[in-house]
């Protein structure tokens, strides 16, 4: 079971954001991607999740090409993503955000809503229970009824993770989950990710914070200017002379 990214290329105008990216990631892994700003990390996520069409190359999930699938179809295939700048449903409360994320609700169609009210009530009760558990797991229960637009940056990141969890994912693509989050909460989020991974959910994590990432993932890739420079265990990758040259610059 794996996510294969084969020779993905993408340009915006004259700017080559991705240049022949090639990666294979096990879907139950904890995998990190680091790189400076503009390295193409977020663009890569957008291509994998279907929000941006690649100019060339293929994306495969468990051996099947998914390039032709829409973003919702890819999510329904078990591959969820979060966004670098959190995209909470700002006028909905934390609880409503999570309830809205549950898949396949009868009450999601107007016909179901008005003609199968009993079914809708039963499902709502079940979803509410899952939401309570998710909020407790992510320590969001104290802000359950706060409009999500009013949350702190870190809480929004947690909420994005929570929404993805509601969809019963196999693999979650996390875009900078620690950016703008206070250190205490970073530790918290990392613990949650490890727990979830132990339960079989895979993570691909884009991160700026090298130190945080190396504590979390057993394996990572370094990107710069649209290319993968190196891939492997953190210690080995960070010793790679090409990586030191390109990413770490003069720092020794």
């Amino acid at each position, binding site marked *: 079971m794996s996510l294969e990214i084969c020779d993905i290329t993408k340009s915006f105008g004259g700017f080559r954001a991705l240049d022949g990216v090639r990666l294979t990631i096990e879907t139950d892994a904890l995998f990190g991607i680091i790189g400076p700003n503009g390295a193409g990390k977020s663009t890569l996520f957008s291509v994998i999740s279907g929000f941006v069409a690649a100019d060339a190359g293929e994306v495969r999930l468990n051996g099947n090409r998914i390039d032709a699938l829409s973003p919702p179809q890819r999510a329904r295939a078990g591959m969820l993503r979060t966004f670098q700048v959190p995209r909470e449903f700002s006028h909905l409360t934390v609880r409503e955000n999570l309830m809205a994320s549950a*898949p396949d609700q009868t009450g999601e169609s107007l016909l179901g809503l008005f003609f199968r009210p009993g079914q809708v009530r039963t499902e709502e009760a079940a979803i509410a229970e899952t939401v309570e558990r998710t909020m407790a797991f992510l320590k969001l229960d104290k802000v359950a009824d706060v409009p999500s637009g009013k949350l702190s940056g870190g809480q929004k990141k947690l909420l994005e993770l929570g929404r993805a969890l509601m969809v019963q994912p196999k693999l979650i693509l996390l875009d900078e989950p620690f950016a703008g989050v206070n250190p205490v909460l970073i530790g918290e989020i990392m613990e949650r990710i490890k727990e979830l991974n132990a339960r079989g959910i895979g993570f691909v994590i884009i991160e700026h914070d090298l130190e945080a990432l190396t504590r979390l993932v057993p394996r990572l890739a370094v990107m710069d200017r649209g290319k993968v420079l190196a891939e492997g265990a953190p210690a080995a990758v960070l010793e790679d002379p090409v990586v030191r040259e390109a990413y770490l610059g003069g720092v020794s």
Partner: protein
Amino acid sequence: MEAYLVAIGIIALIYVLLSLGLTLQYGLTGLINFGHVGFFAIGAYTSALLVMNGAPFIVGFAGAALLAGIAAWPIGLVSLRLRDDYFAIVTLGFSEVVRIILTSERWLTNGVQGIPGIPRLYSDLGGAAGQIATFATILAVTVAAAWMIRRIAGSPFGRIIEAIRDNEEAVQALGKDPPRFKIQVLVVGAALAGIAGAFYAHYITYIVPEQYIPLVTFYVWMAIIMGGVGRVSGAVIGSVILMAFLEGSRFIRDVVPWISEVDMASVRIGLVGLLLILFIIYRPQGLMGDYTKR
């Protein structure tokens, strides 16, 4: 005086119905429907023609809702996958084309001459009693529509359309297809406009294509922007203010009689334009507060 108030009340409720449709579409879902009057027109002509050809009122009203809803379907299919502003252009164009069809297909609509002598509701009750019965009926329908929209807003469906309004890409990232939801909203809002059109036709008894110009769409926009976007109470308050504005601008001619009828129409359009601009710039949340103030 009583008769005048009832008459004003009926027209105001028709605007409330139209505003409720737009509240569902724009206020809750974020759909920029600039062609509301097109669905209103379809409703008016459908019910008028059905009832004048012998159908009972209930069939006329059902036909109005159905046809307006069906007309919304292809519009949604084409444009709901694209950016919001494309939808605005397409719906605006749609309402203009509806008016062209009403003008051109004389065999059906009698063209620019319009259709006179449309039967009134409760005409057998006679003048005043019939008026009041009409008012009561439209009030009941409006209350039911308001209840339905409240119900939708508080439902699983409502959570998702509000999520779409707040961030459409995030909804896609959760595995849900926004166009599927938007099209249902579009159709329901259009059906409400169709019912409003049917009430209008059977109340004023005479319909012509010129009644269905884009200005009417923006009367409704003005109402929900003034009242407060995304709230049932906003739609009601906004429609009342709109009605006061429309009636008030008729009285201006009693005060300044030298203004001609056509100039008065210009002044009215200008005021609508000015109010839209001022509210959008200085008070986008409307008078009642919009969904950001919950």
